[in-house]
Structure formats: structure tokens, C-alpha cells
């Protein structure tokens, strides 16, 4: 099941040139860009890990691409996303966020129904991959 999170997620995966253009768009707007990765892409997991140091004061997208290539080499089977933060509100506001790498195989989520009092049903999503320990989920 293809995970759709963030901007462009219903489009085919972006090529590196397209990613570069999007990063350029962020930099043109003065948004600092971060490279983040995770192997727990649950829709409610908003806290992905930042790769390396925060990337402030960058002028050219090639520098972010360097960081992204390094992240891809370190985590070839993780989800990686690029986020642009608009700090004009005085807090880190995500302005643009898109997935730039996904594992080859995405097993998807199980919909769990829990029966509670009065025949009510509570629903929850559970990632099949998250059963395995961290780091072994998408090998």
C-alpha cells in the first residue's frame, strides 16, 4: 500500500531534478529545509528524525541534495521526507513537506476494530511493518 503523506504524494515519485526545484522554491521563500527519516510512517507519527544538523543559511539546493544523498546512503530502506519551515510566524510552521524516498515494499496498515461497551466500535490503524523492532522494519 503506497503511503500518501504530505505534498505531491498522489503524484509519481519526484525525480532528483524535481526535488531540487522544490527545494529551490523553499529557499526562495526563505524557508529553512530539513531532511527527515523514519521507519514508522504512521499517519499520526509527526515526529520523524532529522538527519544531520539543521540546515540553516543555505543558499543553494545542491547543498540540501548532498545531505539527502547521504541520508539515502545511510537509510536505503527508510522513508525520507523534505520539509520547508516558514518561521515568519515565530514558530516552526511546516510550509511544504514531501516524501523523497520510500521502501521498495510497503506492507501498509491493518484496520483494527475494538468492540467496547454498548456494541460501539473503536477503530485504530496498526502498521504491519511496525511489528518488527526499529531498524528492521523495511529490510
Amino acid at each position, binding site marked *: 500500500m503506497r503511503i500518501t503523506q504530505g505534498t505531491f504524494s498522489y503524484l509519481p515519485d519526484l525525480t532528483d531534478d524535481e526535488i531540487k526545484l522544490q527545494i529551490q522554491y523553499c529557499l526562495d521563500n526563505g524557508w529553512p529545509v530539513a531532511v527527515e527519516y523514519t521507519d514508522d510512517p504512521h499517519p499520526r507519527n509527526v515526529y520523524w528524525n532529522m538527519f*544531520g*544538523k539543521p*540546515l540553516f*543559511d*543555505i*543558499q*543553494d539546493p*545542491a*547543498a*540540501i541534495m*548532498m*545531505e539527502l544523498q547521504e541520508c539515502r546512503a545511510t537509510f536505503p530502506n527508510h522513508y525520507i521526507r523534505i520539509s520547508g519551515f516558514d518561521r515568519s510566524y515565530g514558530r516552526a510552521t511546516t510550509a511544504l513537506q514531501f516524501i523523497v524516498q520510500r521502501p521498495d515494499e510497503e506492507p501498509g496498515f491493518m484496520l483494527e476494530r475494538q468492540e467496547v461497551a454498548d456494541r460501539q466500535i473503536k477503530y485504530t490503524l496498526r502498521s504491519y511493518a511496525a511489528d518488527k523492532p526499529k531498524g528492521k522494519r523495511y529490510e
Partner: protein
Amino acid sequence: MSEPEGVELLQTSTEGETPTDKRVDIDAAYRASNVEALLDELERELIGLAPVKQRIREVAALLLIARLRETEGIGTQRPTFHMSFTGDPGTGKTTVALRMAKILHHMGYVRKGHLVVATRDDLVGQYVGHTAPKTKEIIKKAVGGVLFIDEAYYLYRPENERDYGQEAIEMLLQVMENQRDDLVVILAGYKDRMSTFFQANPGFHSRVGHHLHFPNYSLDELMAIAELMVEQQEYRFDDPSRRAFWEYTGLRMQQPHFSNARSIRNAIDRIKLRQANRLLKEGGQIAAAELQRIDEQDIRESRVFRGGADT
């Protein structure tokens, strides 16, 4: 101007690779590139430095011809522009680096054309594993522009074999080789110490294609610089104060720690201070033009005239 050379170069290579008689208008390309305005500005605002200006013109010519070659479909290897600027303090290395970045950007060699100034402290870490991220961060900031490493020889400390400077040097070398498209590195420092540095790091020497030496300014040039600075700050010398400043500069040049244009700038800052003090002490009503005029007394009060050191 090195333009005629460029013409010759282009014609010979056109004959070599494409047999057509197609004509290329160098003049039109030169005008269209608008680089002339930048070069004129350089000529106007930088006093002296003839060899440096000459080299910048050559760089601009090379880039222009490279661009023409590209539009004509002649295979062109991207030239490398890693440079070393040597010269005493205050001879304009940073200023020229800034201009160089502008020109490289204007001619489309670097994508952004900003200048990132770094010294040893910005590149080399304090403990194991600290250097690589620090150097990498600076390199990332400089991507698309020019990385200016001031007093580059401090990176290399032969007396301490466990010094982390070596790590930074290796990373820089790698970037200079593999990411030539992404940034230009300029190393700067005193001439003799830079040559020792290059001897100890042959990798740097072979990757730096342009070695520019910044000569010390003559008294006349320093005076012209002073006039320019005073004018830019909307002050002016009158004749006695101009003579006094001339004498001041002559004396200051003999003293230790003289750092060319930087000393002149500092002297002018102090003169402005004395001028303001003098005006305030005199009080009363004065002509508005007096606010701009530098009096002889403002200069003569300097310790330099009494044999003292003025920094």
C-alpha cells in the same frame, strides 16, 4: 585587455572542430554580457592592484569565451577557478573575493554568487568527530557561491600531528575536486606562509589554478584610497588637512603593524571622532558644510605625529 587573444582562440578552435565559416560576434556577446559595468566598477573603486585587476579581466574573458564556445556547440571543459590570494593585511583580498564572486555569478559560473568567509575556527573542531560536521556545514553554506578561507595556513599545524586541521584539509580537497560545479574555494593569507602551506600540502597547490599576489599600496595609492573613503562617507579634506593626511600616511607606513587600506580606514574613523569632538567643543552656530570638512587639527592630533603608535 585580453580580448584579442580570445578571438584568436575561438577562431582556431572553430576551424578545428566545425568546418563551417560561421561568424561569431565577440563584441556583441561582450556587450550583451554586461560584464563591462562590473569591470568598470572594479576599476573605479579599487585603487592600484594592477596585476589583480588584469587577472580578473582575464577570468571574465575566459568565461565569456567559454560561454560562446558552448553556444556554438564546441566541447568546453569547465575551467576551475579555485584561487589563492596572497598579500599583506589590508591589501584588499576580501574585497576582491567579494567582487570575484559577483563576476563569477554574473558570468554564470556559480549559481548564487555569495561569499562565505571562514577561518580555522569555523572549520576545525575541538575534539574527535567534531571537525567533519563543522567543515561540512561551512561547505554547505558556501555551495553555489565562493568559500573564502582567510589565513588558510592555520589549517595545517605540522608541530601537532594529531591536529584536526588535517581532516578539514582533506575534506576541502575532496570538495574542490569533486564538486567543482558547486563552489569555488579561495585561500588567502600572507605570501611566505602560504607558500610553506602549499609546499606541505601539494594537493592544494595542484588544485588551485590561480595564484594572485596583492602588492602593498604606495603612498599615492593610499592617499587615493583615503580620498575615496572620505568621499564615500560624505566628508571632505581641505588643502591643509589633505597635506596633513599625506604626512600622517607617510609616517604611519614606517611604523609597525601597518596594514595598508585597513590602517587608513581606522585612521579616518579616528579623524571623524576628533572632528565631532572639536565641533562640539567649539559649539555655537556653524555653516552646515563644516559638518563635512575635516580640519588639519583633526589629523595633527594623532599620536603618529609624536612618534607614538596608532593602530
